[in-house]
């Protein structure tokens, strides 16, 4: 068990100290880092080229310079990223990849070119009509274009062997994560909501191969002990990102455990299993085609509400928690739809609005505690 504790705290520390962790990963692997913005970026290509893909999901920082480009009603993750970029935090990055899943990302990408000229930007546009063959073809072309750009950066071609190898490292990572989230729901005391989030987040600052090894160990260690007897409240969480961490502390204080999630930063990254056929790039494109219930990928008939209801049943949860990143338009559009469906299914739901720069948690504490009292 003590081995397990060490592994867990190792990953927690990595997630809590992104700057240091990335520096260490760079040193340990000898790879140069490339920043990857939310929601999806073709990390496999970055990895295949011998770069270290690093997640860029914002952080808490005082917004001073970013106001030069973005109004106050802009998503706080993007304001943070521009702020960090302008103040030089990202100067060690070889480049950043910014996908444009929403109107804000389109603008952030365009602003980046001027605001952070020292870090080159590679843009990616994901097709929304991804179920049409033309959409899939477009994405394959787009990924190949990214590959060209990264090759130019590197000054050498990425061999198809390296592409395949990288893809299978990522598939192993995703498979390990699917098994991780499945197993940890039986250990909500050892892997509480905060720990669960931090462990998953650590992947963004490490070499995926090293990270996967630790996850597999954690899962095996956990399986050695019997399922934990948890008398708190089990919930399914959805939203862009389950942060800030202070919010998760409040969940832990109130004995609420996330037993399954639909966070863009967490399960949406790995819940889709790749198809068997095709080249690595084609399989990457198919993973986007096959994604369901993601706020940022168009569906002719929205499936998220029912998906969450099914998740509640499968994970034997009691409720749904919506963690809303303030000013995230796409998530804000989804909310009334899922709200109606979840209410119809008679599943209690808690709605919490957060942003990266939050520093007062009193109202949230009241909401979470009231919710726990209501269900308890």
């Amino acid at each position: 068990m003590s081995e397990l504790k060490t592994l867990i705290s190792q990953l927690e520390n990595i997630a809590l100290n992104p700057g240091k962790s990335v520096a260490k990963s760079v040193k340990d692997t000898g790879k140069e880092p490339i920043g990857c913005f939310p929601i999806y970026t073709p990390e496999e290509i970055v990895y295949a080229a011998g770069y270290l893909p690093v997640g860029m999901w914002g952080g808490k920082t005082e917004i001073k310079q970013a106001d030069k480009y973005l109004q106050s009603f802009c998503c706080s993750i993007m304001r943070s990223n521009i702020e960090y970029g302008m103040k030089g935090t990202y100067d060690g990055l070889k480049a950043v990849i910014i996908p444009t899943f929403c109107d804000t990302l389109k603008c952030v990408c365009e602003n980046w070119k001027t605001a952070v000229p020292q870090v080159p930007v590679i843009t990616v546009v994901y097709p929304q009509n991804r179920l049409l063959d033309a959409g899939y073809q477009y994405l394959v072309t787009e990924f190949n274009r990214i590959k060209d750009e990264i090759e130019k950066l590197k000054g050498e071609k990425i061999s198809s062997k390296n592409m395949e190898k990288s893809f299978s490292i990522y598939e192993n990572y995703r498979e390990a994560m699917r098994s991780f989230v499945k197993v940890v729901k039986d250990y909500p005391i050892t892997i509480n909501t905060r720990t669960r989030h931090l462990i998953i987040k650590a992947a963004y600052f490490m070499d995926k191969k090293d990270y996967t090894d630790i996850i597999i160990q954690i899962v095996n260690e956990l399986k050695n002990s019997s399922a934990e007897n948890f008398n708190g409240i089990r919930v399914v969480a959805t939203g862009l990102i389950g942060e800030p961490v202070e919010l998760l502390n409040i969940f832990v204080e109130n004995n609420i455990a996330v037993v399954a999630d639909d966070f863009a930063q967490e399960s949406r990254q790995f819940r889709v299993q790749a198809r068997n056929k095709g080249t690595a790039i084609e399989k990457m494109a198919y993973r986007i085609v096959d994604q369901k219930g993601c706020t940022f990928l168009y569906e002719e008939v929205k499936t998220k509400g029912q998906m969450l209801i099914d998740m509640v049943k499968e994970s034997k949860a009691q409720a749904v928690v919506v963690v809303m990143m303030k000013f995230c338009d796409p998530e804000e559009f989804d909310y009334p739809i899922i709200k109606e469906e979840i209410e119809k299914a008679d599943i209690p739901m808690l709605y919490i609005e957060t942003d990266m720069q939050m520093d007062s948690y009193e109202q949230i504490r009241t909401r979470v505690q009231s919710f726990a009292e209501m269900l308890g």
Partner: protein
Amino acid sequence: MENKITSKQMLGELLEKHYKSAIEAKANGKMVAWATSICPQELLETMDIDVVYPENHAAAIGARKCAPEFIEQSEGKGYSSDICSYARVNMGYADIQFSEAENIPMPDLLFCCSNICNTVIKWYENLAKNLGIPLIMFDMPFNHTYEVPEYSVKYMRSQIEYAIKKLEEITGKKFDFDNFAEVMKLSNETCEWWKKATDLAVNIPSPLKGFDMFNYMALIVCMRGKKEGKELYKLWYEELKEKSEKGIGPFRDQEEKYRVMWDGIACWPNLSVTYKTLKKYGINMVTSTYPESWNVRYETNDLDGMARAYSSNYANRNLEYDVQNVSKLVRDFKLDGIIYHSNRSCKLMDFRQYEVQRRVEEETGVPSVIFDGDQTDPRIFSEAQYETRIQALVEMMENNKKAGRDK
């Protein structure tokens, strides 16, 4: 008895006809579609489907100060007050289905094109879910490069072909390509007259009062593919041309002292006060990004060209294009200043505005101001704040003029 109709009368009549005939069509069992403002309406027109435009309808509701009822309905269902107010008004309308301002029939089909924003994708996705009707989506990838890339054109062209197939399935009718060619030709002609009319504002004084453009705009959205639309803009062009030749300016009782561009959508609930404040200082809004927005031009039967034209909307272009586009307007229209509307509803326009403002100023030296407002939600705009900013702009423009005179 020669009683020639003016373009203003014609505009009023056509608008009334537009809404009335849609309601009649629905009553007679004809198929009705809701569509986004700069979508390839040619396809729907060819299929003889009646189309109404929720953005225009929301603007009409906003202009008649009827938006709060619908906004409250949407927010009551859980929509955040941060999202696009056109969407909030329209989704509220989809529930209430009646407004004293203007009514539209409920749709049988949704037709959405992402060349104006990704927000419409979410909005229409929700409508489709709530109404349980088919949705045809045109995804037009944002152009981070100056020009539209060819592989993007290919993707969009395929979507046009797919949409035709879908329309045939939904209507049970064959798509008539001869008719399609006619509609394409007509739509291009309407756009051409629209552009020619609005371009007359380059003259000094401008025969066009820019806020009129906000009104005339309604039909370049709604009747682009109809011959009445073309006639309207041709007539408008002729009137403006005559005015210009006679040297008549925009205001009857006042001179055109300053020429400005308005960036962004109008503040519909505050249309009158935003206009009057400008007029008070002799400011005429001579242009905006709108004339070019509906200058959707391509060769008849060239589907690639059609895709490229629709994807080339300025909202779908990179920052470099925005800067060049606005700077060109400054030069062509001999602008004295620019008013940027930081429109709480439209993140896509807002989050590029600061940088566009800086670079256009660098490139042209023309002063500008940004004010806070919203296209339909009356809770954002502050009259006092607006006037202070306009006054500050006037002072800057006057300094420039004075410096010019002193030279």
